[in-house]
């Protein structure tokens, strides 16, 4: 009985693999984060281009990078974060983007491109962007100034959290002091360290995960958090307000890149072009609730998304915000400051 059952399972599995391989259609192998595209768009792309899109997923930029470094191949298009793309590019792991194959590049937000690392879109094309901000419970916290200074408020003592991320948290203090988020100046970093130590006495903890549950349930009143995370918490608790601090904050971007080992280079370009078609980009923004920096798409969005502070940032604040970039050797300095923060009483 048991044996027959197992044989059946194996036969079914094999049949499944065979059926998958049988179709002679070209396959585009996409390597990305899970649920990071509207599945309806993928179906539409498959139909239009007579191909199959096979999506595989990774959970961190670092793991994906380690795997490719070791020689893993077979992916035609990857969506890492921009800081990782810089490293991959330096290692010669990426193909240049053939702009003639992506006419929709014309829609990409020129203002956004002034902030990014690969400004010419030489080897990467922006896909989705988000930013870090401050979220709080509107009915329980009064007169919140949209400023990093809120972490000094003594009336919130023990009910606020900061991110447990060296670059984000020290970065917030650097912005608060009016310095660059990528500062490599030891004096500036020491000042930022002292600010974070001061905040540390006021906060409940440094946290990257539990703050979402804590904010939804009201255990925390105010948190530093990622826009995409906060957007989800807001669906649970309508009392939550999200603001971007006026001193500026950090922006992140996940971009399309084509690895040097790609088999379907043209199809990969076609996919980038397809996702930057204004209508498709708008549908994608609505689905995943991050911002695809595509000016053609902005007008097609629903009012709800247009007014969502977790998606769109005040242009003035955006101008003051920065990407977290590679700081080279100064990373050791950051680590030392972070250790001192963690050790401080």
């Amino acid at each position, binding site marked *: 009985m048991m044996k027959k059952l197992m044989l059946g399972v194996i036969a079914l599995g094999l049949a499944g693999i065979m059926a998958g391989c049988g179709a002679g259609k070209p396959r585009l192998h996409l390597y990305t984060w899970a649920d990071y595209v509207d599945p309806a768009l993928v179906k539409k792309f498959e139909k239009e281009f007579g191909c199959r899109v*096979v999506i595989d997923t*990774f959970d961190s930029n670092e793991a994906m990078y380690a795997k490719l470094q070791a020689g893993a191949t077979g992916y035609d298009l990857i969506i890492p974060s921009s800081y990782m793309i810089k490293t991959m590019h330096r290692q010669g792991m990426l193909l240049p983007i053939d702009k003639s194959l992506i006419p929709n590049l014309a829609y990409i937000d020129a203002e956004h491109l002034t902030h990014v690392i690969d400004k010419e879109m030489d080897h990467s094309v922006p896909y989705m962007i988000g930013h870090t901000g401050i979220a709080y419970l509107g009915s329980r916290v009064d007169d919140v100034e949209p400023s990093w200074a809120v972490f000094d408020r003594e009336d919130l003592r023990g009910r606020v959290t900061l991110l447990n991320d060296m670059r984000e948290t020290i970065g917030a203090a650097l912005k608060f002091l009016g310095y660059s988020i990528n500062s490599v100046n030891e004096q500036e970093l020491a000042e930022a360290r002292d600010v974070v130590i001061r905040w540390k006495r006021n906060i409940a903890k440094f946290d990257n995960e539990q703050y979402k549950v804590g904010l*939804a349930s009201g255990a925390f009143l105010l948190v530093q958090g990622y826009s995409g995370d906060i957007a989800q918490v807001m669906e649970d608790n309508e009392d939550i307000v999200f603001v971007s601090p006026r001193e500026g904050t950090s922006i992140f971007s996940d971009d399309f890149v084509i690895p040097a080992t790609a088999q379907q280079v043209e199809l990969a370009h076609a996919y980038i072009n397809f996702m930057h078609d204004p209508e498709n980009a708008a549908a994608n923004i609505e689905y995943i609730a991050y911002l695809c920096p595509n000016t053609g798409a902005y007008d097609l969005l629903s009012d709800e998304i247009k007014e969502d502070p977790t998606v769109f940032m005040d242009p003035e604040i955006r101008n003051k915000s920065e990407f977290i970039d590679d700081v080279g050797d100064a990373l050791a300095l950051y680590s030392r400051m972070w250790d001192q923060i963690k050790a401080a009483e």
Partner: protein
Amino acid sequence: MFTTVLVLLFFYIPILLLVLNSFNAARFGGQWEGFTLDWYVRLFNDGPIWTALRNTLIIAVSSTLVSMVLGTLAAFALHRYNTRLQRIHYTLIYTPLVVPDILMGMSLLLFFVAAGLQLGLTTIFLAHVSFCISYVAMVVLARLQDFDFSVIEASQDLGAGWWDTTWRVLLPMLAPGIAAGGLLAFTLSIDDFVITFFVSGPGSTTLPIRIYSMMKHSRNMPIINALSTLLLVVTFIAVWSSQRLTREKRT
């Protein structure tokens, strides 16, 4: 008695919470916001999750079966022969139990790339077999150490050939050990993340890889609660019916 209850609570409360949360309208299980079947509906409409589950089951079943055979053979060789070669063999079998997963994943990946193998379900299968063998072999070896070999001699005295002895005496007596090893291998294979991540290729995402990668951006995280609840139910039914079946046989 009191400690037993406490330990049981410690084990089962998280599972109970998970089941409850799969029906919770709230996305973050901080508080109860009403009953919903929405996560189950989303789960059934989520193609990639089912593909990942299918991949996971194909790998788990096939690598368990193969490692049960190879692991038992290995245990047998280790038990019967005490030569220098077998001592090296023992070290080889023992190593995967102590080597960190990340090291094993990385070195397997380097090996597969050097060997020119296309990464995919096959390479995951090979990797899982290579660590499952060790667990099966260890469990069966423990069983063999208590095994009374005079039974084998008795069967041979009574005229059973090599084939009959193996199939009708040895294997049935070892079966519980092999089954236990197989179950252990199955469990390890089904939730292995680190090794699988490195040796997987295009089109072979397994359930653990899918779940980890949902942490960052997915808006569908709670469907994992729903999926786990369904898997729990399936496990309970399987255990319950197998117990019933064996009971009926005895009466």
